[in-house]
């Protein structure tokens, strides 16, 4: 192609592009639905958790729509919720790009995915676009210390997790039998830094000693060095927060090297149902996923039954928290009486609601005063161990016997 022809082509395409720039149109009619945007990891390292989040959102939206939708005073009618759920591939940078797209689609609120890195990216976009954002499966307390107005998370945070594990052990195990020699395998991420520091700070307050504390890069495939060092240090209680692939690699190698401590808390990785594929080495592990169907809150039963019908097992831990977010959103829209994002945000901040995850209110920083249940995988089932009054099974300890 000659330069002249190329030039003419560039000019023509440029004019075409300029002429087709969309012009915003106003539509004053009653909308057919209430658009809600969700960005969830359905593929990538967090896919196992993302599948639970997706199920929670879907079940809740179906239940609310089957009950007639959400009444919006501004329009004098009830409208169904319409979920625009997209996969961010467990990539925080895809999260931000998708949330920008959803903003353009006119969603009234964002629902987040699974894992602190994805929520960390999402909350910033929510703040920029001034759209209320809710998320569970994220314990990163630091996100609530940024002064954000649009981020709400009814989920236990790092300080809650750090305290609850020691409280549970002290309450359920007699002195002298407790796993007082603690080892921390800390992921080199912002949440890893936060929770690692919280465990280190709280351990001595409850009579525990951190005898081993080392970092690793996410995506590490060889944990043998950490395992050998922890063994040498005489670690009895292993505390970790790996992504599911990292957690699987770690425990598989622990099995191969014949090391299983008396107590293990695996935040995040052990939440996914496929954890059972690890067999003996994964059994007896504790998880901290924020919810369990045995907590017995209002509305759990029909949701749990649907999960059993579809999946053949009680609702997975993250399903309940995700379900509650849609309940909170529907309630906020109803109280706001409008689809205005700012009004919905204000109503959300004033939430005072019974949900499948318990009674929810929000603090000024968007966190919620919510108890941190701890579960243990026992023979493939997820048993609620803490709080003791709702426990479905006794603690199995030591786990390596």
């Amino acid at each position: 192609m000659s330069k002249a022809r190329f030039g003419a082509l560039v000019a023509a395409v440029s004019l075409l592009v300029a002429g087709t720039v969309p012009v915003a149109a106003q539509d004053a009619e009653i909308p057919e639905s209430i658009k809600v945007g969700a960005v969830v990891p359905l593929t990538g390292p967090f896919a196992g958790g993302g599948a639970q989040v997706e199920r929670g959102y879907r079940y809740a939206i179906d239940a609310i729509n089957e009950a007639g939708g959400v009444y919006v005073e501004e329009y004098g009618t009830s409208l169904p919720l319409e979920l625009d759920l997209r996969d961010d591939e467990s990539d925080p940078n895809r999260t931000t790009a998708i949330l920008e797209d959803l903003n353009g689609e006119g969603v009234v609120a964002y629902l987040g995915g699974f894992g602190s890195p994805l929520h960390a990216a999402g909350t910033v976009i929510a703040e920029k676009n001034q759209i209320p954002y809710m998320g569970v499966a994220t314990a990163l307390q630091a996100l609530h210390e940024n002064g954000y107005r649009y981020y709400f998370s009814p989920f236990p945070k790092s300080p809650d997790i750090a305290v609850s594990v020691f409280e549970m052990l002290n309450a359920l195990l007699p002195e002298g039998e407790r796993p007082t020699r603690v080892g921390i395998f800390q992921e080199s991420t912002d949440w890893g830094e936060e929770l690692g520091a919280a465990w280190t700070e709280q351990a001595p307050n409850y009579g525990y000693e951190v005898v081993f504390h080392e970092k690793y890069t996410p995506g590490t495939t060889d944990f043998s060095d950490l395992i050998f060092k922890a063994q040498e240090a005489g670690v009895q209680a292993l505390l970790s927060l790996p992504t599911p692939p990292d957690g699987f690699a770690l425990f598989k190698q622990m099995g191969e090297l014949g090391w299983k401590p008396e107590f293990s808390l695996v935040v995040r990785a052990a939440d996914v149902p496929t954890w059972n594929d690890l067999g003996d080495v994964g059994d007896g592990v504790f998880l901290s996923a924020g919810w369990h169907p045995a907590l017995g809150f209002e509305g759990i039963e029909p949701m749990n039954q649907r999960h059993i019908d579809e999946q053949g097992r009680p609702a997975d831990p993250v399903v309940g928290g995700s379900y509650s977010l849609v309940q909170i959103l529907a309630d906020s829209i109803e109280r706001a009486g409008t689809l205005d994002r700012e009004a919905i945000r204000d109503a959300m901040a004033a939430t005072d609601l019974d949900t499948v995850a318990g009674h929810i209110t929000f603090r000024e920083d968007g966190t919620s005063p919510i108890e941190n249940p701890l579960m243990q995988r026992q023979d493939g089932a997820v048993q609620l161990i803490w709080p003791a009054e709702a426990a479905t099974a006794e603690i199995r300890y030591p786990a390596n016997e």
Partner: protein
Amino acid sequence: MRRNVSVAAWFVLLAVCIVLPFSSEDSQVLTIAIQTFILTALASSWNIIGGFAGQISLGHAAFFGMGTIITRELWLSGAPLPLSLAAAIVATALFALIIGVPMLRFRGIYFSIGTLALAVAISLTIGNLFPGITSMPVEALRAYTFTDPYFLALGAAVTTVAVAMLLRRSVVGLGMMAVRDDEAAAGAVGVDVLAHKLAAFAISAALAALAGGAFAFFSVSYYPSYPFTAVWSFETILVTFVGGIGTIVGPIAGSAFFVIGRDTIAANFEGFQVIGFGVLFIVVVLLVPGGMVEGAQRIGAWVVKQGQGRKRDVEG
């Protein structure tokens, strides 16, 4: 006459780009445009070392990443943006000069692997040193508009393309291309091979840092290690090959095609964008090694040939 039309076309394209943010407030349109400009700047910068000097660097993300982290850290610490950008560009160019001396003594695949290894090592180190997300302060977030990042990204693209244009017509640029075509022959006729490679490497790195600075100013949040990841190097090489390696227009056309195509595929066939462009890359390398530019030239030649044939038929 043809030259005048070509110059006019460039100005029309630039004018459209300048007018766009004033005629549309659609954040999706502006985001796509900004992403295209940043990728154009990055691809054009890689084109200098890869297309002009013939050194296939697989570690370009390291320079892009350095541009982002230096610009972002200084700017968020309160330094003026131009100063932050300038510091990033100068530091990255110096870094490229320092590592370029030993690295450019490698040839072919050894140079490529060396740059890839270096970039991966830097990426992992940055991930460990800066584990937390980098976000703009709340006040800046609420006041955020696309206009300023848009013009910085456009400026980065225009600057990079302009430097590539000037370089291609310069003695230094001709020396780089001589090295690309035959190192031994270039050396035999008096071209300082290492100096020309080093110049291409440093200029390329400095312009990648400029693109990184634009990314740092545009993005409200990201993990600091993200711009250092190999995906930036591979996307850069992909769009340069798809557009037309060694040409001025190629990286621009390839970037626009890639960004728009990626979003279109992602929106309609979620999850298939990576494999889609992977297949496209293979097809281009096998069938149209000169990319979109060569493809357009072939189509143009075919149209002209058909036109001449019809003219002969009519006259006959």
